[in-house]
Structure formats: structure tokens, C-alpha cells
């Protein structure tokens, strides 16, 4: 595998941009450019910063440079029968580790094995002053200093250029089995949440078009026993189906309308919103193709205790992400200032104005 350290070059570019106060658009593989508000600034390419820096399967930790391709990392972990628990979507063969962390997307396993942020143990970043900083580390338990590592996840590169990330990895499951059920949305939501309250080896629950799919992962014994307990039909060719769900390759995802991502408490009943909806994360993540006004849609989701993101399509100059409330907005703005005082890193990618 390729290994190259271009951190010196990246640091000097950021330091220079800080001096001049000019904006940088950080780019990994460029596979998630559709996401977030419209980027601005001159391109800072991180892709050349590649390589696995440290991987010790028995420590359950891998440290990797941010330009490393996600697919490459996954392959190396698979060779040691390990994996990233959160099942990150790649959205393209070029997706990098840095882009994955910056976007913070987690796949169908998220409710059962944790999100990207749950697996992050440490980072090396360049802040908006062009300083190289190291937070967290390569050990599973570490509370020295504020947790600035997890803060990078989902920050869309607005707090720092991610140079290196250490993840906690998990053993790959011995056996995977998928069971499917015909049922209504209402019943499916109830059923997923009843099962999630029982000690079953669940690793994904999704629902679309009257069909509930449940994935079980773990030791052979546990999966067989759980399969008997929950019933349903065994789906033989499920691996591709779950991958297409994760990568948004299912036919459902090729609709014309803007695509919304609704993040709600898992047991929330069917959402009273127009449009075609697919349920993932055992009810906690709902994909909705919908032309509805953003304000009205957001109100419905907020009333359910959640928030809505315009994931794809629609007006990218509008607030893509849930607008923040006053104190929350100020805190986040101050935090952005703390890391990037001249607002040179991906300005405007998350919130208008900074």
C-alpha cells in the first residue's frame, strides 16, 4: 500500500492561508462534495497524505493518515478479521478516511455498534492557525484534556484539517444472517424497538415498502438462536442489499426530489410527512424524498425530538443543516473561532457566514 507523509506541505499551506486570511476548501477524495453547503476557497488536497501508520490487531487500534482510501483501510482490517464497527458509507471508490471523519456518516450498524465518533480515539489535525495538534491517542481510555478528537467528526473540516486518525476497531462477526418480514410501517417500527430492548445480536434493522429487514451478526450459535427467536424468512443474498442501502445504491435513492435525512428517536411512529420514506437505524434514521417546505418539514421532525438535514439536491445555498438555536449557535460560533480564528477552513460549508 502507498505511504506518503505530506503534512509539512499541508501545514505550510494552511499557515500561509492564515497569514493572508484566504479561504481553503479541504478535499479528500472529492466523493462527498454533494454534501453540505456549497464549498468556497482554493483547494487543499489531502489525498496525497496516505498510509497506515500503526496497526496492532490485538490492541484493537489502527492509526491511519487522512488521505488513505477507505477501501484500502477496510481491506487491511479485513485481513486481520477486523473492521470499523460503524460501517461507513464510501459514496465512491475514492472516499478517504479524512472525508469519512469530516462528514461523520455511519452505516446501518450505527445503532448497535456505535457511530464514527464512538470509534475515534485520537487525531492529528492542523488548526486554522496552521498549527499541528495532537489530541487523544492510541489507547482506548483517555481523558487527558478536552475531547477535541470526537469534535472533528461531522465538523466538515471547519475546525481543522484532519491529518491522522486513530480508531478503535472490532472483530469481524463470525456469521451474518438476514431475516425479512412483511408488515406495516407502524408494526415494523414497534417490532424493531421491541427487539432492540432484548439481548439479540442485532446489527441492522431497515424498513421499506412493507418489508422489514433485520440483520443478525455474531457467533454462529448466537445468530442461529436469535434467528429462531425472531422468525421471518431468511434472505440469502442480503450482503449486496445492505451494501446498496449503505451506499445509497438502492433504486429508492434514485428519485428526483430533494433527499432529506431525518434523525429521530428510534421508536417515533410513522412521520406525518408527504413523500417516499425508507427507514434505517432501527427507526432512528429516515430517508425522505420530499418537496415540502424546509421550515414545515423541520417543524414536524423537531416536534418528534429530532432534526432534519437536506442531504442531497434542493437549494445548497440555504441552511442545509438544522438551524441552531441562539445559545447553541453562539457556542458553536465561538468554538469555530477557537480553532479557526480567521475562518479560512471550509468557510460556510456548515453554517452561513462561518
Amino acid at each position: 500500500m502507498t505511504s506518503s507523509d505530506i503534512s509539512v506541505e499541508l501545514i505550510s499551506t494552511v499557515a500561509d492561508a492564515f497569514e493572508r486570511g484566504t479561504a481553503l476548501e479541504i478535499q479528500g477524495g472529492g466523493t462527498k462534495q454533494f454534501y453540505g453547503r456549497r464549498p468556497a476557497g482554493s483547494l487543499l488536497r489531502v489525498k496525497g497524505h496516505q498510509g497506515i501508520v500503526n496497526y496492532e490487531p490485538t490492541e484493537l487500534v489502527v492509526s491511519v493518515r487522512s488521505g488513505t482510501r477507505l477501501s484500502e483501510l477496510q481491506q487491511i482490517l479485513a485481513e486481520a478479521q477486523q473492521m470499523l464497527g460503524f460501517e461507513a458509507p464510501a459514496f465512491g471508490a475514492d472516499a478517504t478516511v479524512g472525508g469519512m471523519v469530516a462528514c461523520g456518516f455511519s452505516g446501518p450498524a450505527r445503532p448497535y455498534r456505535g457511530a464514527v465518533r464512538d470509534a475515534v480515539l485520537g487525531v492529528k489535525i492542523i488548526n486554522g492557525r496552521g498549527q499541528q495538534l495532537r489530541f487523544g491517542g492510541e489507547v482506548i481510555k483517555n481523558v487527558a484534556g478536552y475531547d477535541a478528537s470526537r469534535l472533528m467528526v461531522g465538523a466538515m473540516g471547519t475546525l481543522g484539517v484532519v491529518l491522522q486518525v486513530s480508531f478503535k476497531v472490532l472483530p469481524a462477526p463470525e456469521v451474518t444472517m438476514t431475516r425479512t418480514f412483511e408488515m406495516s410501517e407502524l408494526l415494523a417500527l414497534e417490532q424493531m424497538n421491541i427487539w432492540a430492548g432484548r439481548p439479540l445480536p442485532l446489527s441492522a434493522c431497515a424498513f421499506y415498502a412493507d418489508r422489514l429487514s433485520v440483520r443478525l451478526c455474531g457467533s454462529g450459535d448466537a445468530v442461529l438462536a436469535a434467528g429462531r427467536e425472531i422468525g421471518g424468512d431468511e434472505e440469502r443474498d442480503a450482503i449486496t442489499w445492505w451494501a446498496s442501502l449503505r451506499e445509497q445504491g438502492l433504486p429508492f435513492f434514485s428519485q428526483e426530489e430533494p433527499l432529506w435525512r431525518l434523525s429521530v428517536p428510534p421508536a417515533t411512529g410513522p412521520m406525518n410527512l408527504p413523500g417516499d420514506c425508507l427507514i434505517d437505524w432501527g427507526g432512528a434514521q429516515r430517508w425522505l424524498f420530499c418537496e415540502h417546505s424546509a421550515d414545515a418539514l423541520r417543524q414536524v421532525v423537531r416536534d418528534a425530538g429530532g432534526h432534519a438535514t437536506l442531504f442531497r439536491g434542493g437549494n445548497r445555498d440555504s441552511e442545509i443543516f438544522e438551524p441552531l438555536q441562539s445559545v447553541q449557535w453562539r457556542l458553536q460560533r465561538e468554538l469555530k473561532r477557537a480553532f479557526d480564528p480567521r475562518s479560512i477552513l471550509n468557510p460556510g460549508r456548515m453554517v452561513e457566514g462561518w
Partner: protein
Amino acid sequence: MLQAESRRVRGALIAKLRDILPRQFVLTETEQLRPYECDGLTAYRQLPWIVVLPSNSEEVEKILALCTARGVPVVARGAGTGLSGGALPHPHGVLLSMTRFDRILSVDRANRTACVQPGVRNIAISEEVEGMGLYYAPDPSSQIACSIGGNVAENSGGVHCLKYGLTVHNILKLEVVLMSGESVTIGADALDMPGYDLLALMTGSEGMLGVVTEVTVRLLPKPAVARVILAAFDDLAVAGNAVAAIIGAGIIPAGLEMMDNPAILAVEDFVHAGYPRDAAALLLCELDGTESEVEAGIREVTRILELQGATEIRVATDEAERQRFWSGRKNAFPAVGRISPDYYCIDGTIPKKRLGEVLTGISKLSNEYDLRVANVFHAGDGNLHPLILYDGSQAGAFERTEALGGKILELCIAVGGTITGEHGVGVEKLNQMCIQFEMPELDQFHAIKKAFDPAALLNPGKAVPTLSRCAEFNAMHVHKGRLPFPELPRF
């Protein structure tokens, strides 16, 4: 502050606080203040100026707004079991005791969450939801006493955190009052929140960024079966290899704990758990899951332990025996407390593969400083708790103990680990922070603090050392290897 001036300011503040709280919840007499002078790190003591006991967030908002207006520092306190002096009072500050926030507000069975006030004891949550087959996973050894608010502030872990995560992995939402007196919701009832992950930032922030007034925790289904294996070894490094072998085989135990011989002896004398007294190391490995899964796991772990050279292997046959095996580990601290007038608990984390080397290093240091050390170890996640035995009544003994503790932490850093796995920095490890982090990193921490608390009134002087302190420490440290006047607090 001059004494007369100080008395006047204090008096005026007390009067204002009594407008906010009923009289009996504003403590001002020395004998009332005494119980608050230290947390679990009893070597550091400071009588608070004033103690207040609010019971709702409106009161907390008013108290913080008042203190901000008057430039008075505030220190939040949960159950006071912290081991790094995080809740150590400020001599001219208000100590905010959160013990009256003691209600479980609601349990949402369908969503598997509980909303509780921060003063609720950790174990009370699991007790409340036991009938639903659910529990709250992070289980610090102090769980019968420590508060969930303190757990959030320290990102506490427990025996089960290798498999089930730390506090940060098991909370969803916080209500927080900022030093300005404003309330803000951080996190959500959903699995993620818009904007930056302030929930992660708040967790483990040692009461420096805001006062937590409500916590929504995630509940997990209780595993159907849990069984524990006890294994003895005649060599610590061999036991360390066994730990790596178990994890390398793709097994994530629900708990994986180790003790060295001095710890085994102390525990055996105290609770008679039936541990082999002559073992150099003892490993406890718990597996949970379905009946058949645990059966298979026990067979596999037993095979690995034999292969790795365990001198004795016992599988607990029933729940009573399982509890007995664990009772030793869970009572390790008090057991050590019985064999020595005082003990000092260190909390470093290391990569597991360096265990042998680190334990050898600790034993060398122990000889050098002429102080006994007993080691208990969250082996699965590399979190080491060396317990230094000393006699605080002997002149200089505590200073020597602290110096030895500092050296052990430096050793942890040197092998790629960290100075604190779960107890926090508090006032205790400020110097070691200067070694673990570079100046720009510490500077970044101060900038984060400033975003939340621009006047630096909340728990000032804790968790992150000032740059000037580090400049001074590093200069001294390089030349002499020891900080002069370690007894002087340097805020």
C-alpha cells in the same frame, strides 16, 4: 483579596444567594463547609468560601449569573468520589453541590433511554430499569456512590467498558447551564445532533465548561447470561500475553481484569475470594451473551489460557461463585486500604503490549522510592491502576508518593499511553499535562474553555495547566527531574 474586603464581598454574596435559595441551602459556617473540603483525593484540601445546594436549573441559572456578575468562581460537585481533585473547592468561590438533583425524571422503555438529574447515583439507574430487562452499562467501581453528573464530567468507565463503552458512548443528551447563567440543550433524543459534537466535548470536561442539570442516558438490554473465568499465572508478562491472545482471537470479553501478587494478597486477606495466593498475576475474564454463545466462548478462552501457560483455570459454576470471583476485584481499593495507613491510586493507560515493560519499570521505581505498589489493571483496555502504599503521618511520605506517581505517569506517556484513563486531570496531574501535550495544544484547550466560559470562572485552575506553569515546569523538569515545592498549589 484583602481580608476585610474578602469578608465584605462574601457577606454581600451570601445575602444575594439567600434571595435565590432557602436559608438552609446556603452553607456558611466552618463546620458546615468542612465535609466539602476535599473529594476522593483527600491529600488536597481547601475549605470552600460558601456552599450552595440548589435543586432545579432555574436556581443554578440564577446562581451562575450572580457569580458571573460578581466575578466569583464556581466549582460544581457531585458525590465527591472523584480521584483527581476535580471538585476541590476554590478558596474564594462558591461550591455548587448537585446532590439535591436526585430524581429519575422519566424512563422511555420503547426508546430505551432514561432522563435523570445529575445527582442520581450511577447504580440507581440500573436498579430503576431492572424490571424491564435493561441497564445502564458504564459501571465504575464507585457506582453505589458516584453521581451521573460526575460520571459525565469525568467520562467514567468501569469493568464493562471494553465491550460496552465509556460514559461518552452511553449518553444522548444533556441540559447544561453555562457560567453566563444561560441554559442550553446539548445532544438530542435522536442518535445525533446538528452542528459540532458538543456532547463529546462536554463529556470528560471536568466541570470546566458548564454545569450539567439533566442527563439522558442510553439503556442496553441485559445479556441473558454472564459467566466469569479466573486464571492464575506465575509471570505477569505471560498474563499480559494471554490478554492479547484472547483479543487477537476475536473475543471481546464483557470484562477483562488483572491483579498482581500484592493486590491478590491484600484482597484475599480482606474478602476471601478464593484467589490463589501464590500467583504472580490473576486474570478475570467475563463473557456475556446467549447461553450457547457464552458456552462456546468459555471453551475458547479456556483453550487460549491453557495454551498461554495459565497455572490454574477456574470457571465460576453459579452466580454466587461469579459474584465471589468479582468481589475481590471490586474490593481491591478498600483491601489495599487495610494493609497500609494510606494509599494513592494512579490512573494511566498504556498499549497492552507494553504491559510487561511498564510493570517492570514500576517495580524498579517502587524500589527506588522505597514505596510498595499493588497493581490492579483494566487489562482489556490497557488502563492501569497502580496503588502506592504509604504512611501519610511520616514527614515527606506523601511528597515521595506523589513524585513516584508522577514518574509512573511519565512512563505511561513514554510507551505511547496517557496520564489518565478515567479519573481525570483535576489538580493532580497538571504537571504531567505539560509533558503529554505541547504548548499549542494546551493553548487550543484554553481557547475551547474560553468559548464556553470567557471569564474563566467555572472550576478555574483545573484540568488544563497554564502555559506559564508548563514553561516553568518543563524548565525545572529537564534540569532536575523534580518540581520544586510540589506542595504549593499553582493556579
